[in-house]
């Protein structure tokens, strides 16, 4: 992991170097200096971590258990995957459809809850989110192609 982060640090250093990283006379550091030297510091920290790992100073380096057992990877992967699914559907069909499907998936197939609870949450949560954000707080959430379906709701909310 530290090796990966070291690579990221080098990447960041190059990215920062697009701007002036040196000391501009009379003006102090250039605009790229701050992130450049910080990334350089990150690289040093990673090198230190790798070195410590070789020497076996940290408890992690002496740990013989696998980094992530299979069951853990499964559970975490499904959870993270379900959020990715939620976001992809939000892009395609808007957040309300996405919330509906996400709750169906999570409550029914992961939580094994009964249908009455699942269905009431599937309907209740999007309605709650809509009322709170769109109506009370006036923050429009992404609706993608389902946008026109909301016109009648707006008619109801604000009058025609």
């Amino acid at each position: 992991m530290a090796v990966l982060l070291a690579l990221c640090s080098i990447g960041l250093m190059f990215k920062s170097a697009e701007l002036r990283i040196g000391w501009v006379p009379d003006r102090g550091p250039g605009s790229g200096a701050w992130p450049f030297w910080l990334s350089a510091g990150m690289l040093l920290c990673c090198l230190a971590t790798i070195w410590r790992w070789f020497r076996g100073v940290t408890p992690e380096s002496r740990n013989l258990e696998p980094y992530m057992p299979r069951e853990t990877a499964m559970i975490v992967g499904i959870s993270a995957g379900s959020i990715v699914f939620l976001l992809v559907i939000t892009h395609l069909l808007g957040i309300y459809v996405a919330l509906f499907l996400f709750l169906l998936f999570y409550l029914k197939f992961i939580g094994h809850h009964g249908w009455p609870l699942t269905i009431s949450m599937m309907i209740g949560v999007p309605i709650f989110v809509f009322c709170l954000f769109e109506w009370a707080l006036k923050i429009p959430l992404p609706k993608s192609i389902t946008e026109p379906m909301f016109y009648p709701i707006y008619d109801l909310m604000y009058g025609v």
Partner: protein
Amino acid sequence: MEEILLHLAGGLTEAMQPLNFMMIVIGCALGLLIGAMPGLGSVNGVAILLPITFLVPPTSAIIFLAAIYYGAMYGGAISSITLGIPGASTAVATVFDGRPLAQAGQADRALTAAAVASFVGGTISVVLFTLFAPPLAAFALKFGPQEEFALMVLAFATFIGLGGDDIPKTVFSILIGLVLAAVGLDIISGQPRLIFGDIDGFLHGINFLVLAIGIYGIGEMLWTLETTQGEVVVHKVQVSVDRMKANFKDIKNYIMTTSLGSVLGYFVGTLPAAGATPASLMSYGLAKTFSKNPDSFGKGNVAGVAAPEAANNAASTGSMLPMITLGIPGSPTTAILLGGMIIWGLRPGPLLFSENPEFVWGLIGSLYIANFMTLVINLAFIPLFVKILTLPFTILAPIIYILCVVGGYAPTQTMHDVWLMLLFGVVGYLLRKLNYPVAPAVLAIVLGPLAERSLRQSLLASHGDMSVFVTRPISAVCIIIALLLVCYPMIQKFTRKGSRAVAAGQG
């Protein structure tokens, strides 16, 4: 003095008028709700409700908005404690100890501490506000970029010891937070910086909330999943009168920390540009450094909840001072309040106190009452908030995920930030497995932009001469205190070496 009391009495009467009092109660309740939603903070509440205030007189309007501001400050603690997600940047330090307390079944204790500390913080700062507004306004003017940078150094110094024992990993965490904070537009040269793949979303920089919600919301849930292997965990909390009494007896354990945090928070809040977030973080850091038992912080110490909560409420009052006397917002929320005042035809500035005394004193009076009302409302609802924790994990988890997604979207209204939040959540979780502390990164992303900007402004002004930080009296004092703070734990380590060796032997 007599004059001040007379004005204050007038202000209190003004605030107690039926319309104004109603505004306070509704404002506090709304603020609590908005503050408790992850991603939404007082900024959103105030901004959204600003237009509504065109329908009432200016004094009632500012009272309403100030009440929302106060309520939201309290509300932020609720989600920090019950859900483990900071409701707003000001409440991030509350997570450090609030979350472990909730997991240990003591959510009610943490919530009570947060409410009481907020009340104390708010009250102490309003009293300070009442008594010392003009001299402090003059002091705030002395704060230039050099002093701001010295203050940031001081803030960083208070975090020494917040990370774990693995120094390279802690430093790495701080640095990555600072680098992420540098994404966006460079304020000095106006050039875009670290815009990965030319994606528009990076132009506004990486919002602090994106990182905080990612790490504490998504990352924490994944972590919980791993530790429990998806087993249903129910945090049993019974609420009874006896427990309430015990919670109040608890107050004496953190009243000192709270009072110190309040005074600190107020002073930091009055400085333009600082605001409540650095104040709460500094207060937490100091509470830990000077605690008799610093190792218990981060594992569920009530003082660790009280310190930041006292400071953030005190700072929110403090930030009203530069707004009223100088017309400069001390925080994003006061920036919108300021806009509101201008829209109502009031001109904040050095003359507002003398030209519109009934407005200023009405506001001050309402702060006293709003503070008390939020305490009452908050204490009354603690049993309800605690109930949230008794939900089965498979119901709570999707709700938290949804709150994270919607909360990540709301501040900037771009899907880009939501994806970024998910990424930070997963990466944060993976790093945490390897014992990388995540809190320093979150702190660094808040303070990074302030530190870089003030450093470069100072160096521009001094033509690259670093000595300005020690030749100016206020900044020199800040830097000396910072140095002392850095040295303090080391001195302590030496004196405690014996006892630590014993502890290590047992561990």
